[in-house]
């Protein structure tokens, strides 16, 4: 595929497959690219019945394995077909849940053990971590191969939390799927709901009012702010600087309380609805948000300079967890991880969907280590504050929700730049305007493999720090 050759222009966003046999068509696989020159999505479609050609790219290979496992379509030329989500210990062989004719009320029994990669150089030893970790975090299994102190290789096994959300939503109503979308990755509630809702709105040609766009953007930025503050605090914590960490945790807590005061939910669940938003911002709310931003700015810069002026912290974070430009490009990195390694894929700037397009800068950094990823977050925090302020100043009167009519047999994509990177949802509706196929793509799916490169040559004690500096979602990856 020609787009894979021109990486500077086309940023690969994923492969979206669907079983269209019900419509007397074949299986469809859509390759989605972000065209950085034309500022739109480029979608290539292929049809197939049983196999398709594998692409020479490690990230595309992951998508191919996913499609092989979920649909039973074989990628020709790809040898590694190990399952990603359906563990051989727990699921029967040849079980492809997203095929429309697969029965789900079967006996779930495994057929074997997962094969880890065979990598045992002489003198090396292994440290196995997880699935349950020491901190209050989500489950995942990490296998380190070490030679002395430095890490030689890291192999990750994910999908302990695979629930089967995509299949579960099929034949259900759009409203039910919207509630599911709020619970895909809890800290990204707004972003995932927005991506889903946008996909449906694109499919059904629903236009929303300018005011609703503003309010959506404000809540999206509030969520970005919350996640960035949380990450910032955890970086402090993981370098053993709990004094800074606790202070920033307090900022995050105040933001969550602000959320609660405005929308009645600490994560703003339920704010985004089809056709607009369910929550209007009163003058009182606007005043509250502005007050908070004023307070936040004052406090945040204190801790930013604390971080940047402390040699003990920078000693830990500089040159730790480096991801170079080539790796970030090859794996089509997203979000701050990409920005820190010199790759820019922010769809708020590169696409025309968001109202904050002109308020943001084309901001990339080069070194790709933990410090740089923190710096990228600093930039995001400052931009979020600026964007929310501008939006609040310019918000106009108007309706916040429009009546919507769902269009049967339609298809649409929704793209949202969340804190971790862009989220893409594809929604197909059936003849009753219920969900026919829903594909969720969380940015974590692109960024997880990068950790395997980031930790190389570091010591194992730095792994929590590297992991937190990318701070990826397990739930969004496992689905």
């Amino acid at each position: 595929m020609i787009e894979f050759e021109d990486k500077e222009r086309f940023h690969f966003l994923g492969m979206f497959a669907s079983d269209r046999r019900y419509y007397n068509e074949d299986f469809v696989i859509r390759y989605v690219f972000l065209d950085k020159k034309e500022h739109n999505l480029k979608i290539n479609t292929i049809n197939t019945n049983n196999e398709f050609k594998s692409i020479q790219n490690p990230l595309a290979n992951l998508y191919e394995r996913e499609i092989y496992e979920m649909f039973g379509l074989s990628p020709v030329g790809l040898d590694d077909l190990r399952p990603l989500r359906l563990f051989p210990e727990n699921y029967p062989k040849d079980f492809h849940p997203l095929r429309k004719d697969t029965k789900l009320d079967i006996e779930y029994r495994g057929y074997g053990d997962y094969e880890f990669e065979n990598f045992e150089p002489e003198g090396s030893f292994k440290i196995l971590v997880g699935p349950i970790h020491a901190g209050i975090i989500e489950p995942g299994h990490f296998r380190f191969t070490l030679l002395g102190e430095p890490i030689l290789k890291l192999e990750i096994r994910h999908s302990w939390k695979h629930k089967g959300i995509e299949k579960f939503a099929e034949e259900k109503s759009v409203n039910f799927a919207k509630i599911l979308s709020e619970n895909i990755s809890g800290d990204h509630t707004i972003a995932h709901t927005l991506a889903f809702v946008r996909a449906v709105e694109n499919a059904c040609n629903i236009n929303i009012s300018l005011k609703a766009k503003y309010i959506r953007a404000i809540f999206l930025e509030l969520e970005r702010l919350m996640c960035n503050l949380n990450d910032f605090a955890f970086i402090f914590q993981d370098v053993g600087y709990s004094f800074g960490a606790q202070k920033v945790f307090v900022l995050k807590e105040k933001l969550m309380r602000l959320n609660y005061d405005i929308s009645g939910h600490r994560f703003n669940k339920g704010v985004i609805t089809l056709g607009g938003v369910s929550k209007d911002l009163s003058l009182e709310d606007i005043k509250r948000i502005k007050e908070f931003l004023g307070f936040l700015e004052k406090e945040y810069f204190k801790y930013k300079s604390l971080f940047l002026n402390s040699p003990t912290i920078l000693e830990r974070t500089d040159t730790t967890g480096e991801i170079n430009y080539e790796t970030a490009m090859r794996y089509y990195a997203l979000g701050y991880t990409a920005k820190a390694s010199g790759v820019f894929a922010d769809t708020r700037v590169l696409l025309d969907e968001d109202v904050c397009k002109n308020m943001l800068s084309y901001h990339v950094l080069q070194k790709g280590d933990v410090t740089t990823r923190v710096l990228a977050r600093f930039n995001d925090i400052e931009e979020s504050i600026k964007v929310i302020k501008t939006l609040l100043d310019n918000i106009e009167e108007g309706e916040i929700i429009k009546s919507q009519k769902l269009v049967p047999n339609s298809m649409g994509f929704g793209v949202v730049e969340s804190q971790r990177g862009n989220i893409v949802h594809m929604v197909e509706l059936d003849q009753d305007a219920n969900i026919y196929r829903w594909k969720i793509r969380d940015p974590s799916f692109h960024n997880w493999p990068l950790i395997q490169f980031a930790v190389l040559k570091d010591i194992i004690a730095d792994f929590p720090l590297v992991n937190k500096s990318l701070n990826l979602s397990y739930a969004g990856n496992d689905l």
Partner: protein
Amino acid sequence: MINILRTFLKEGIQAKDIEPNKENIKIYKNIPMCFSKSLYIRHVDCGSCNACEYELSALTNPIYDIERFGIKFVASPKHADAFTISGSITRNMKTPLLDALQNVSNPIIIAIGDCAIDGGIFRGAYGIIGGLRDLNIEPHIWIKGCPPKPEDIIGGILMANGVLR
């Protein structure tokens, strides 16, 4: 640095009193009195959406400061008296969960969030086996909410061990 320390002193202690919403707390069994001032908890996420983890990790911040009640999150089940369990239990997480529970005799089980009891909104998806009920594990406490508020989580524990009425 000195300036920051000075502002700290001026701010003083930030921890607030815990005022839970009792409607969100369901107590099936009380926690034995001997744990009333010291309870070590191991958290296991069995398939949550990660909002429950977000709120659990907020418990240690200065505003909630759960450690002032002698409640502490520990790194291994072998150090723990109690488990907090969140999320609908997936097929893939069932074995790790049971393995972890095996390390503690008569563990105190605290179910966090709507999912943990019966799978919540995800009940019926092929990847989950449901919740604690489907594994015949009876929790001591269930904190409702999606996700539950930090006050309710702390309040639930304190009510079950008799510290709070």
